[in-house]
């Protein structure tokens, strides 16, 4: 019967694993002296290892913050990707903004404060800019049906 070919990968793995397990059995003095023999500063090397572990702790503690940040970035990205087609006629745009302000009174007070004048006095450009900003903020998504010139 032909001899089974050697599996060098398995052999290497077995040897390295045996060496790893031998480290578990080694005394503290052996670990430290082997480091010194290898020209390493045990204290500095040990603190390097602790830094890796501390980094893991920090990442764990900040996981909620990281998740919130990722969710926020996804939302912003989704809003940025959204395309709006505002009514082309100035009068339709004015009507759309009136609908938004009627259904979202909180926005009305904020917008009027921002513009420092009565809504009726807004120019077509003011309305256009305002609608574009509302679109970018995602506010117009629920007014999809009001975005056409027919409204």
């Amino acid at each position: 019967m032909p001899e089974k070919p050697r599996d060098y990968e398995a052999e290497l793995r077995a040897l390295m694993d045996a060496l790893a397990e031998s480290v578990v059995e080694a005394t503290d003095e052996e670990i430290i002296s082997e480091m010194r023999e290898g020209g390493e500063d045990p204290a500095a090397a040990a603190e390097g290892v602790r830094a890796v572990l501390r980094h893991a702790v920090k990442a764990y503690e900040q996981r909620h913050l990281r998740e919130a940040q990722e969710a926020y970035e996804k939302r912003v990205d989704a809003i940025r990707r959204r395309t709006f087609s505002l009514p082309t006629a100035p009068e339709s745009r004015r009507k759309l903004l009136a609908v938004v302000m009627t259904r979202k009174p909180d926005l009305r007070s904020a917008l009027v404060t921002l513009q420092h004048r009565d809504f009726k006095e807004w120019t077509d450009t003011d309305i256009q800019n305002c609608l574009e900003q509302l679109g970018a903020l995602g506010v117009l998504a629920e007014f999809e049906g009001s975005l056409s010139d027919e409204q």
Partner: protein
Amino acid sequence: MPEESAATPAEITTAMEVLTAAALLRLRNYARWRVRGLGRKAAGRTETELLADAMNATLEGKRRWNKDKVDFVGHLVGAMRSISSHWRGQSKSADEATLESDLLRTTEDGEVLRPFDLVPSEEPGPDEELEANESQSEARTRVEAIENAFADDPVISLILDGLRQGMTPGKVRAELELSQTEYETAMKRLRRRMRAAAGSGASDA
């Protein structure tokens, strides 16, 4: 594991902060040998990543530390052993076996297809075969360098021979009738020379 035995993140953090220099270096060296044993299967992953993964898994509760049964170093060693085994693809255990009868399918014509009829061939493609050959070739170079380096050390040569035959370290020690101290002394010699050789630029020995 009883819930009350599983360490909390605060207990894990405290245990980490009080680790001695020797304990920290023991963890790093353990990770180093395990990753070196992965060869190409490490896929660029390092000892630092292995250690960090073990710590992350512990904090996240994926690998719970039973503080009543094992100390923190022992727990992290166990976690690294398990994670690195997973990396090398040993997670496909017999537990995952599926009954062939569960996989039988019948065509519209009533023909019964067996699982092997349904899946693509498991035969490695040319790329996989080339990769496997290169990996074996690299491992062979490393193994032979180690064997040559310790040819004049009868105890280590016998230990290497036992490991080559697939024996566990405990079995090797028993077969060679070495005391625990004799075995550990030989392994220490092996670690030192391989470490020195690696420091001088050689791959392993």
